[in-house]
Protein backbone atom coordinates (compact mmCIF):
# COMPACT_ATOMS: atom_id res chain seq x y z
CA UNK A 1 0.00 0.00 0.00
CA UNK A 2 1.23 3.46 -0.82
CA UNK A 3 0.14 6.37 1.38
CA UNK A 4 0.38 9.92 0.31
CA UNK A 5 0.19 12.52 3.06
CA UNK A 6 -1.73 15.48 1.80
CA UNK A 7 -1.46 17.64 4.84
CA UNK A 8 -0.55 17.43 8.50
CA UNK A 9 -0.97 19.53 11.60
CA UNK A 10 1.73 19.60 14.26
CA UNK A 11 0.63 19.68 17.89
CA UNK A 12 2.89 20.18 20.88
CA UNK A 13 2.47 20.64 24.58
CA UNK A 14 4.93 22.10 27.04
CA UNK A 15 5.37 22.24 30.76
CA UNK A 16 7.94 23.43 33.22
CA UNK A 17 10.00 20.71 34.81
CA UNK A 18 9.94 21.81 38.44
CA UNK A 19 10.04 19.79 41.63
CA UNK A 20 6.64 21.13 42.65
CA UNK A 21 3.26 21.88 41.07
CA UNK A 22 2.73 25.41 42.23
CA UNK A 23 4.65 28.49 43.27
CA UNK A 24 4.91 28.77 47.06
CA UNK A 25 4.53 32.54 46.94
CA UNK A 26 1.43 33.11 44.80
CA UNK A 27 0.20 29.48 44.98
CA UNK A 28 -0.61 29.52 41.28
CA UNK A 29 0.39 26.46 39.24
CA UNK A 30 3.83 26.65 37.65
CA UNK A 31 2.26 25.80 34.31
CA UNK A 32 0.11 28.88 34.72
CA UNK A 33 1.48 32.32 35.47
CA UNK A 34 1.82 34.47 38.58
CA UNK A 35 -1.20 36.49 39.71
CA UNK A 36 0.09 39.65 38.03
CA UNK A 37 0.55 38.06 34.60
CA UNK A 38 -1.93 36.84 32.04
CA UNK A 39 0.13 34.53 29.85
CA UNK A 40 2.13 31.54 31.01
CA UNK A 41 5.42 30.58 29.38
CA UNK A 42 8.23 32.92 28.42
CA UNK A 43 6.37 35.95 29.74
CA UNK A 44 6.27 34.57 33.27
CA UNK A 45 9.22 32.18 33.60
CA UNK A 46 10.37 30.14 36.56
CA UNK A 47 13.68 30.65 38.30
CA UNK A 48 15.60 28.33 40.60
CA UNK A 49 17.74 29.16 43.57
CA UNK A 50 20.89 27.28 44.47
CA UNK A 51 18.86 25.79 47.32
CA UNK A 52 16.82 24.13 44.49
CA UNK A 53 13.59 25.95 45.37
CA UNK A 54 11.69 27.35 42.46
CA UNK A 55 9.33 30.32 42.01
CA UNK A 56 7.79 32.49 39.32
CA UNK A 57 10.45 35.10 38.58
CA UNK A 58 8.02 37.94 39.32
CA UNK A 59 7.11 36.47 42.71
CA UNK A 60 10.67 35.91 43.93
CA UNK A 61 11.91 39.28 42.59
CA UNK A 62 9.13 41.10 44.39
CA UNK A 63 10.05 39.29 47.61
CA UNK A 64 13.81 39.88 47.27
CA UNK A 65 13.24 43.55 46.56
CA UNK A 66 11.24 43.92 49.76
CA UNK A 67 14.08 42.41 51.84
CA UNK A 68 16.59 45.03 52.92
CA UNK A 69 19.12 43.02 54.91
CA UNK A 70 19.14 39.40 53.89
CA UNK A 71 18.16 37.92 50.57
CA UNK A 72 16.77 34.62 51.71
CA UNK A 73 14.79 31.87 50.05
CA UNK A 74 11.23 32.10 51.40
CA UNK A 75 11.10 28.31 51.67
CA UNK A 76 14.30 27.42 53.52
CA UNK A 77 15.71 30.81 54.61
CA UNK A 78 19.08 30.01 53.04
CA UNK A 79 20.75 32.88 51.29
CA UNK A 80 19.09 33.25 47.88
CA UNK A 81 21.41 32.82 44.92
CA UNK A 82 20.15 32.27 41.42
CA UNK A 83 21.07 28.94 39.93
CA UNK A 84 22.89 29.40 36.66
Amino acid at each position, binding site marked *: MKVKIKSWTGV*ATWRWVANDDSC*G*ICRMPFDGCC*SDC*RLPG*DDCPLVWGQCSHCFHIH*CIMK*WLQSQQLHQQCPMC*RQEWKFKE
Partner: protein
Amino acid sequence: MIKLFSMKNQKKDGSDVAKQGTQKRASAAQLRITKDINELTLPKTCDTEFPDPDDLLNFKLVICPDEGFYRGGRFVFSFKVGPNYPHEPPKVKCETMVYHPNIDLEGNVCLNILREDWKPVLTINSIVYGLQYLFLEPNPEDPLNKEAAEVLQNNRRLFEQNVVKSMKGGYIGNVYFDRCLK
Protein backbone atom coordinates in the same frame (compact mmCIF):
# COMPACT_ATOMS: atom_id res chain seq x y z
CA MET B 1 7.53 26.80 20.73
CA ILE B 2 6.50 28.72 23.80
CA LYS B 3 6.61 31.96 21.84
CA LEU B 4 4.17 30.49 19.37
CA PHE B 5 1.69 29.78 22.12
CA SER B 6 2.15 33.22 23.60
CA MET B 7 1.33 34.83 20.27
CA LYS B 8 -1.70 32.69 19.86
CA ASN B 9 -2.91 33.58 23.32
CA GLN B 10 -2.26 37.24 22.72
CA LYS B 11 -4.53 37.18 19.72
CA LYS B 12 -7.26 35.59 21.78
CA ASP B 13 -6.84 38.24 24.42
CA GLY B 14 -8.94 40.85 22.69
CA SER B 15 -12.11 38.87 23.29
CA ASP B 16 -11.10 38.11 26.90
CA VAL B 17 -10.80 41.78 27.71
CA ALA B 18 -14.27 42.43 26.37
CA LYS B 19 -15.65 39.60 28.47
CA GLN B 20 -13.97 40.89 31.60
CA GLY B 21 -15.16 44.40 31.04
CA THR B 22 -18.02 44.08 33.50
CA GLN B 23 -16.28 42.20 36.29
CA LYS B 24 -13.05 43.50 37.75
CA ARG B 25 -10.09 41.15 37.79
CA ALA B 26 -9.32 39.91 41.30
CA SER B 27 -6.12 41.33 42.75
CA ALA B 28 -3.10 39.14 43.47
CA ALA B 29 -3.85 39.40 47.19
CA GLN B 30 -7.47 38.34 46.62
CA LEU B 31 -6.46 35.37 44.49
CA ARG B 32 -3.96 34.22 47.06
CA ILE B 33 -6.25 34.69 50.09
CA THR B 34 -9.00 32.75 48.29
CA LYS B 35 -6.64 29.79 48.04
CA ASP B 36 -5.58 30.19 51.66
CA ILE B 37 -9.19 30.21 52.87
CA ASN B 38 -10.19 27.26 50.69
CA GLU B 39 -7.31 25.20 52.03
CA LEU B 40 -7.78 26.20 55.64
CA THR B 41 -7.74 23.21 57.98
CA LEU B 42 -8.66 24.58 61.35
CA PRO B 43 -7.97 22.78 64.63
CA LYS B 44 -11.19 22.00 66.49
CA THR B 45 -10.52 24.90 68.88
CA CYS B 46 -10.61 27.51 66.10
CA ASP B 47 -13.29 28.96 63.88
CA THR B 48 -13.49 31.79 61.35
CA GLU B 49 -16.17 34.44 60.91
CA PHE B 50 -16.64 36.50 57.78
CA PRO B 51 -18.71 39.62 58.60
CA ASP B 52 -18.91 40.28 54.84
CA PRO B 53 -18.84 36.94 52.97
CA ASP B 54 -17.73 38.72 49.77
CA ASP B 55 -14.71 40.23 51.50
CA LEU B 56 -12.11 37.56 52.21
CA LEU B 57 -9.53 40.22 53.11
CA ASN B 58 -11.16 41.07 56.43
CA PHE B 59 -12.28 38.36 58.81
CA LYS B 60 -12.18 37.13 62.36
CA LEU B 61 -10.69 34.08 64.01
CA VAL B 62 -12.17 32.75 67.26
CA ILE B 63 -9.94 30.56 69.43
CA CYS B 64 -11.41 28.58 72.32
CA PRO B 65 -8.46 26.75 73.90
CA ASP B 66 -9.34 23.31 75.32
CA GLU B 67 -6.18 22.91 77.37
CA GLY B 68 -3.54 25.00 79.10
CA PHE B 69 -3.88 28.19 81.15
CA TYR B 70 -6.58 29.59 78.87
CA ARG B 71 -8.90 26.56 78.74
CA GLY B 72 -12.54 27.64 78.60
CA GLY B 73 -11.80 31.13 77.30
CA ARG B 74 -12.97 32.60 74.00
CA PHE B 75 -10.64 34.95 72.15
CA VAL B 76 -11.42 36.86 68.98
CA PHE B 77 -8.72 38.01 66.55
CA SER B 78 -9.24 40.33 63.60
CA PHE B 79 -7.31 39.73 60.37
CA LYS B 80 -6.74 42.50 57.84
CA VAL B 81 -5.08 41.27 54.67
CA GLY B 82 -3.42 44.11 52.74
CA PRO B 83 -2.92 44.51 48.96
CA ASN B 84 0.70 43.34 49.32
CA TYR B 85 -0.22 39.95 50.73
CA PRO B 86 1.58 37.50 50.69
CA HIS B 87 4.66 39.72 50.52
CA GLU B 88 3.52 41.37 53.74
CA PRO B 89 1.82 39.52 56.61
CA PRO B 90 -1.81 40.27 57.49
CA LYS B 91 -2.40 42.70 60.35
CA VAL B 92 -3.69 40.64 63.27
CA LYS B 93 -5.14 42.12 66.44
CA CYS B 94 -6.69 40.49 69.48
CA GLU B 95 -10.13 42.02 70.05
CA THR B 96 -10.63 40.29 73.37
CA MET B 97 -8.79 41.87 76.27
CA VAL B 98 -6.53 39.16 77.62
CA TYR B 99 -3.97 38.75 80.40
CA HIS B 100 -1.15 37.28 78.36
CA PRO B 101 2.63 37.92 78.24
CA ASN B 102 2.66 38.14 74.43
CA ILE B 103 -0.52 40.17 73.89
CA ASP B 104 -0.75 43.74 75.18
CA LEU B 105 -3.87 45.48 76.46
CA GLU B 106 -4.41 47.18 73.08
CA GLY B 107 -4.57 43.79 71.39
CA ASN B 108 -1.14 43.85 69.71
CA VAL B 109 0.18 40.36 69.30
CA CYS B 110 3.84 39.35 69.57
CA LEU B 111 4.28 36.43 67.22
CA ASN B 112 7.46 36.13 65.17
CA ILE B 113 5.77 35.09 61.92
CA LEU B 114 3.55 38.19 62.07
CA ARG B 115 6.64 40.41 61.97
CA GLU B 116 10.30 39.68 61.37
CA ASP B 117 9.96 36.02 60.44
CA TRP B 118 7.11 36.40 57.95
CA LYS B 119 7.76 34.91 54.53
CA PRO B 120 5.35 34.68 51.62
CA VAL B 121 5.18 30.89 51.58
CA LEU B 122 3.39 31.03 54.95
CA THR B 123 -0.39 30.96 54.90
CA ILE B 124 -3.33 31.99 57.07
CA ASN B 125 -3.18 28.45 58.41
CA SER B 126 0.37 29.01 59.70
CA ILE B 127 -0.81 32.08 61.61
CA VAL B 128 -3.78 30.21 63.08
CA TYR B 129 -1.45 27.55 64.45
CA GLY B 130 0.96 30.22 65.70
CA LEU B 131 -1.82 31.98 67.60
CA GLN B 132 -3.14 28.75 69.03
CA TYR B 133 0.39 27.93 70.21
CA LEU B 134 0.60 31.26 72.07
CA PHE B 135 -2.30 30.14 74.27
CA LEU B 136 -0.76 26.74 74.95
CA GLU B 137 2.76 28.06 75.57
CA PRO B 138 2.81 31.72 76.57
CA ASN B 139 6.40 32.89 76.23
CA PRO B 140 7.73 35.15 79.02
CA GLU B 141 11.05 35.70 77.21
CA ASP B 142 9.63 38.11 74.66
CA PRO B 143 6.86 40.01 76.43
CA LEU B 144 4.45 42.72 75.34
CA ASN B 145 2.73 42.63 78.73
CA LYS B 146 5.73 42.77 81.08
CA GLU B 147 3.72 42.39 84.30
CA ALA B 148 2.10 39.20 83.10
CA ALA B 149 5.46 37.88 81.86
CA GLU B 150 7.09 38.54 85.24
CA VAL B 151 4.37 36.71 87.09
CA LEU B 152 4.59 33.76 84.70
CA GLN B 153 8.34 33.58 85.17
CA ASN B 154 8.37 33.92 88.97
CA ASN B 155 5.16 32.30 90.11
CA ARG B 156 3.30 29.96 87.75
CA ARG B 157 0.55 29.28 90.31
CA LEU B 158 -0.21 32.98 90.65
CA PHE B 159 -0.12 33.40 86.88
CA GLU B 160 -2.62 30.57 86.49
CA GLN B 161 -4.89 32.16 89.11
CA ASN B 162 -4.62 35.57 87.41
CA VAL B 163 -5.58 34.09 84.04
CA VAL B 164 -8.65 32.38 85.51
CA LYS B 165 -9.61 35.56 87.36
CA SER B 166 -9.23 37.71 84.24
CA MET B 167 -11.28 35.32 82.10
CA LYS B 168 -14.10 35.33 84.69
CA GLY B 169 -14.08 39.12 84.53
CA GLY B 170 -12.22 41.10 87.17
CA TYR B 171 -9.26 43.22 88.14
CA ILE B 172 -5.62 42.15 87.88
CA GLY B 173 -3.72 44.98 89.57
CA ASN B 174 -5.63 48.05 88.42
CA VAL B 175 -6.64 46.69 85.01
CA TYR B 176 -10.17 45.43 84.50
CA PHE B 177 -10.69 42.44 82.19
CA ASP B 178 -14.11 41.66 80.70
CA ARG B 179 -15.45 38.17 81.11
CA CYS B 180 -14.45 36.01 78.15
CA LEU B 181 -15.44 32.50 79.21
CA LYS B 182 -17.17 30.44 76.56
